[in-house]
C-alpha cells in the first residue's frame, strides 16, 4: 500500500468517513450497464442458485434454481440467463464505425493499414464483488464447451440453445477483467475501493454493504458506525439485514430459510411424481408451484439489497467526472469486444481450456503494458494520484527558474536546452535518470543533469523540439512555467513479436498438440490447447481429463 493511501485510511479512521483517493473517475461507467447479482449454492462448486440481472434498476429479472443439485433445473437457469444477457450483448454488436488497424499482409508479410469495423460502444457487465467476477469466469468455463442439440444431435445431455454462446462471452469478459484498467466487466467493490479509502481493512472492504456505509452512510450515522451495522445487524429471525453481496450466501440464510424451502420443494415434487390421478396431480402441482414461488421470493429478498447497492455505487461513481484518458482505455475495451464478436461470427471454436505457451506469454505481456499504462494515465489524469507519486519520489511539481540554450555535440547539433527548476518535492533523481512531462498530450523527455548549489535540479530536454536547429515554438518551457515531471514513462513500448503457436520452440515443448506438452490437453494429443485461441481445429470440446495416479489415491 502506498504512503498516500495509508494516510487516507488513517484520516478515514480519524474522521469516521471515507476519504477520496481520486478526484476523477478512472473507469468507464456505461450509460446502460448490465448489472448481474449472482448467488451460488453452498458446498456445490459452480452450482448457481439464483441471479438478479438487467439494465433497469427498478425491474431486475429474477432467475432462480429451486433445487440447485438438479442439473436440468441448472441448465434451465443458464438458458434463461442466456436469454437475459445475450440480447443485451447483441444490441452493441451491430452499431459499428470504421476504424484502421495495421495487419500483416498475407502475401508480402508487411504491415499494412486496413479498415475494419469497430463497435461504437461496448456492453458492460457490473457485478457486486470480486468473487462475482470469478463466478462469471466459472460460469463461462462450465458452459462454453457444452453442445446444443442443434450442434450435436447425438449429445446425451444437450444444452439449451445459446448456452454455449453465453459461456464464450462470459469467458471473454472474465479474461478481459484481468487486464488492468479495463471496464468491460467490473466489480462494484473494486470501483469503490479505487476511488475511496475507508477506515477498515482491505478484507472488510470486500463487503459491499460496509464499504458503501463508509462512503455514503445513511442518516446521521458516521461511516464507521454505519459499516458496523451493515456487517452485523440481524433481524429478529436472525437474518442479516444487509446480506453478503455474493455469490456466497450467509449460512444462517442457508440453514434457517433456504434449506427448509428447498426441502418443501423436493417433497412437493416427489408427491407430484407419486400422484395417481388427475385431480390429485393438479392439486400437487399447485403445491409444487407454491413451493417454487416461496424459493423465488426468498432469493429475491436476499438479492435485492445487493442489487440496490450496486446501483447506489454506480450513482456515487457517476458523480465523479471521467478522467481524460479513460476514453482511450475504453476504446481498447471496444476493440476487445469487437474482436470477440468477429471470432464468434467467424464460427471459431470456444476458447481452449488452457492458453498455449504463446498465448499465455502474449496475454502476460499485454497485461503488463496495460498496468504500466494505467498507472501513468491515472497519475496524469488526477492530481491526487499524482500527489501519491510525488510523495514516493516518482514525480515532482516544479517551477522553471532558468532556461539556457545548449546543443548536442553531434555533427548536426540539435537543441538540448538546460532547464533549471525549483521544486518542493523530493524526487529520486540521480545520474542519467530520465523524466517526462506531458506536452500537448504527448510525452516530452528530459534527463537529470545535476543539482544547482541551492538544490534546484537541472534538466536537459532531449526530444520533441522538431528537426530544425531552433526548437519548435512552445516546445521549450519558459521561466515561470509550472510543470509536473514524472520519473515514469507515459507510454509503454510494445513487446517483441512472439513466434506463432505452430512454431513454439523446443524449450517450451514444441507446437501445441504435439507430443511433449505435459499437463495440457488430452493424452492422445488432441488437446484443447491446439492452435492459438481458436485458430485451428474445430473440435475444441474434448474428452475428460486424463486419469492420473492421484485419481486412485
Amino acid at each position: 500500500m502506498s504512503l498516500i493511501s495509508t494516510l487516507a485510511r488513517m484520516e478515514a479512521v480519524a474522521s469516521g468517513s471515507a476519504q477520496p483517493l481520486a478526484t476523477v473517475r478512472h473507469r468507464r461507467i456505461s450509460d446502460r450497464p448490465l448489472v448481474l447479482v449472482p448467488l451460488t449454492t453452498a458446498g456445490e462448486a459452480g452450482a448457481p442458485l439464483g441471479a438478479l440481472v438487467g439494465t433497469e434498476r427498478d425491474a431486475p429479472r429474477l432467475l432462480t434454481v429451486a433445487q440447485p443439485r438438479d442439473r436440468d433445473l441448472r441448465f434451465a437457469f443458464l438458458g434463461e440467463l442466456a436469454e437475459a444477457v445475450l440480447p443485451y450483448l447483441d444490441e452493441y454488436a451491430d452499431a459499428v464505425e470504421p476504424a484502421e488497424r495495421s495487419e500483416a499482409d498475407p502475401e508480402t508479410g508487411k504491415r499494412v493499414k486496413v479498415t475494419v469495423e469497430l463497435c461504437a460502444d461496448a456492453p458492460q457487465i457490473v457485478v457486486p464483488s470480486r468473487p462475482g467476477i470469478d463466478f462469471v469466469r466459472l460460469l463461462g468455463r462450465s458452459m462454453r464447451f457444452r453442445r446444443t442439440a442443434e450442434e450435436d444431435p447425438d449429445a446425451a445431455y444437450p444444452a439449451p440453445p445459446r448456452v454455449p454462446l453465453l459461456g464464450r462471452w462470459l469467458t471473454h469478459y472474465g479474461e478481459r477483467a484481468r487486464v488492468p484498467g479495463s471496464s468491460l466487466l467490473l466489480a462494484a467493490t473494486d470501483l469503490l475501493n479505487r476511488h475511496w479509502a475507508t477506515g477498515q481493512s482491505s478484507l472488510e472492504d470486500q463487503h459491499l454493504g460496509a464499504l458503501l456505509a463508509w462512503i455514503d452512510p445513511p442518516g446521521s450515522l458516521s461511516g464507521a458506525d454505519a459499516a458496523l451495522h451493515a456487517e452485523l445487524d440481524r433481524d429478529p429471525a436472525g437474518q442479516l439485514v444487509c446480506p453478503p453481496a455474493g455469490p456466497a450466501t450467509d449460512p444462517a440464510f442457508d440453514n434457517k430459510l433456504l434449506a427448509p424451502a428447498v426441502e418443501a420443494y423436493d417433497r412437493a415434487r416427489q408427491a407430484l411424481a407419486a400422484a395417481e390421478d388427475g385431480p390429485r396431480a393438479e392439486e400437487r402441482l399447485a403445491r409444487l408451484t407454491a413451493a417454487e414461488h416461496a424459493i423465488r421470493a426468498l432469493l429475491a429478498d436476499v438479492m435485492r439489497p445487493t442489487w440496490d447497492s450496486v446501483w447506489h455505487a454506480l450513482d456515487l461513481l457517476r458523480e465523479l467526472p471521467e478522467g481524460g484518458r479513460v476514453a482511450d482505455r475504453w476504446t481498447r475495451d471496444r476493440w476487445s469486444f469487437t474482436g470477440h464478436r468477429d471470432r464468434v461470427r467467424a464460427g471459431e471454436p470456444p476458447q481452449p481450456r488452457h492458453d498455449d505457451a504463446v498465448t499465455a506469454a502474449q496475454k502476460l505481456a499485454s497485461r503488463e503494458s496495460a498496468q504500466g499504462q494505467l498507472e501513468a494515465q491515472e497519475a496524469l489524469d488526477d492530481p491526487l494520484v499524482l500527489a501519491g507519486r510525488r510523495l514516493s519520489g516518482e514525480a515532482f511539481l516544479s517551477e522553471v527558474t532558468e532556461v539556457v540554450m545548449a546543443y548536442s555535440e553531434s555533427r548536426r547539433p540539435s537543441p538540448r536546452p538546460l532547464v533549471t527548476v525549483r521544486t518542493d518535492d523530493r524526487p529520486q533523481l540521480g545520474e542519467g535518470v530520465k523524466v517526462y512531462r506531458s506536452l500537448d498530450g504527448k510525452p516530452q523527455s528530459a534527463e537529470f543533469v545535476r543539482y544547482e548549489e541551492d538544490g534546484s535540479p537541472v534538466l536537459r530536454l532531449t526530444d520533441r523540439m522538431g528537426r530544425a536547429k531552433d526548437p519548435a515554438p512552445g516546445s521549450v518551457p519558459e521561466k515561470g512555467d509550472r510543470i509536473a515531471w514524472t520519473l515514469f514513462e507515459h507510454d509503454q513500448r510494445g513487446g517483441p513479436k512472439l513466434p506463432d503457436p505452430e512454431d513454439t520452440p523446443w524449450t517450451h515443448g514444441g507446437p501445441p498438440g504435439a507430443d511433449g506438452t505435459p499437463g495440457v490437453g488430452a493424452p492422445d494429443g488432441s488437446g484443447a490447447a491446439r492452435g492459438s485461441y481458436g485458430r485451428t481445429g474445430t473440435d475444441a470440446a474434448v474428452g475428460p481429463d486424463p486419469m492420473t495416479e492421484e485419481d486412485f489415491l
Partner: protein
Amino acid sequence: MTAPATHGPDPAGRSADGPNAGPPSAGGRSSGSAGPDDTAAGFDPGAAAGRATDAILRDTLHGPHRGVVVDSPPGAGKSTLVVRAARELAAAGRPLMVVAQTNAQVDDLVVRLAEKDPELPVGRLHSNDPDPYDKVLDDLPNVRKSAKAADLTGLDIVISTAAKWAHVQGVEPWSHAIVDEAYQMRSDALLAVAGLFERALFVGDPGQLDPFSVVGADQWAGLSYDPSASAVSTLLAHNPDLPQHRLPVSWRLPASAAPLVSDAFYPYTPFRSGTAPGERTLAFGVPSDGSGPDRVLDEAAESGWGLLELPARRTPRTDPEAVRAVALVVRRLLDRGAAATSERSPGPRPVTADRIAVGTAHRDQAAAVRAALAELGVSGVAVDTANRLQGREFDVTVVLHPLSGRPDATAFHLETGRLCVLASRHRHACVVVCRAGVSELLDEHPSTEPVQLGVTIKFPDGWEANHAVLARLSEHRVSWQP
C-alpha cells in the same frame, strides 16, 4: 563417445542430487561442515571446480542433448565459465549467440572475452537508445557494435540482452547459444528468443531472486510454460532429460560465509568456499571507539558476519534510525582505514568506497541510504536493491534487513532469493543492520501462500531461510541504542 554423467561430477563425494532432487536422506548432510570423506585437508577446490568445468564443456561441445543446465552458487565462477565456453565454441567453429539479462552484464562479458582473447571477433548487438553500451567497448578493436543483427553476421560471437534478441527476426539461426543468468530470465523471454538457436548452455544461480511480474499470473501457475516462471523451470519441465551440472566452489564467499549461505539457501546442493579459514582477513588502522558501528565492524572483521541490532520498533520503510546506522557503519569502515588481505594480492589492500556496497529491499530505502551517506560525506559506495545488486561482488557489504521494523512479513519480504542476494555479495565481511524482534515477527507470520497444483515447491522457503540466517547472525550480534 564417453557418455557424461547426468549430474555434475561430485569430487567431494557428497550427495549428487540435482537441484530438482528431493531432500536428501537423513544424515546426508551435516550442517555445512565437511562431509564424510571430505575433510578440509582432502578437498582441493581448484581441482573440484576444474573437473566440474570439464564435464560441462564436454556436454556442451560433444553431448547429444540440445541443452545443458549449469547451476552456480554465488561467486562460483559463472562468468569465467561463460567466457571459457564461448571461446571453446568459437574455436570449434560454431557460430555463437550469448544472451544476458542486462546491458551491464553484456558489456562485462564483452570486456572479459576481449581480455582473454583480444583477437576474437565479437559482435555487440545493442538497442537504439542513446548510450546503448559502455564506452569502454569503443577501445576494443575486434568488437563490432551495431543495433542490427544483420550487420554482425559472420562474427564468431554475438552478444546482447534477452530484450534485444527478442526483436531480432529474419536471420539464420545460430548453432549454439549461451544463456547467462537463466534463472533470472522469464519463461516468456526465453520463448521470444529460443527460435534463434539450435542448442544452448543455460547458466545461472537458482538461489537468487526469481523473475516476477507486476500483474497477477496465477491463472498459468502449474502450466509447464507458465510465462512468469523462470526460463529454466520451463526448459526442464519440457526437457527433463537435459544434463544438469553445478559448480561446487564459491570463489567469492569467504570460508566464514559459504557454510551459512550454503546451509540456508542451498541445503540440498551444498557448496564450498574456495579459500580456507584465515586466508582472507580484514583489519583496521584505527582502533574501535566503542560505539555500536565500531563494535559490529570489529565483530565482522573477526568472524565475517556482524549483526547490528537496534531496539525493537515498528517503523516506516525508510526507518531513519536504521538508515542512519547503515550510513554510520559505512562511514566508520572508511574512516578506520579497513584493509583486506586475500589470495588476490600479496599484501593488504585498502577497502575503498568502490569495494563497499549497501543492500536494501526497496528502492526508497536505497534512496534514503544514499541521502544519509551524502550527508556524512561518503560517495562512491554502491547503494541498491537486491534486484540490482545481483551478480555483483564487493569486499564488504552492509545490509538493511528486509524485515527490519516491519509489522508484517509479506511474501515479497520473505522471498528466499532476496535475502540470499543480500547475504552473498561480499568477499570479506557482511554487516546486517536490523531492528530486534524479527524472529518473533517470523513466528507470527508463517507462510500462507496458497499451494498451486503442478508447481514445484522451492526449498527452503523464505520463512525457513530467514530463520536459519537469523539464528547464525545472532551469534554475531551487537546491540546498539543509537
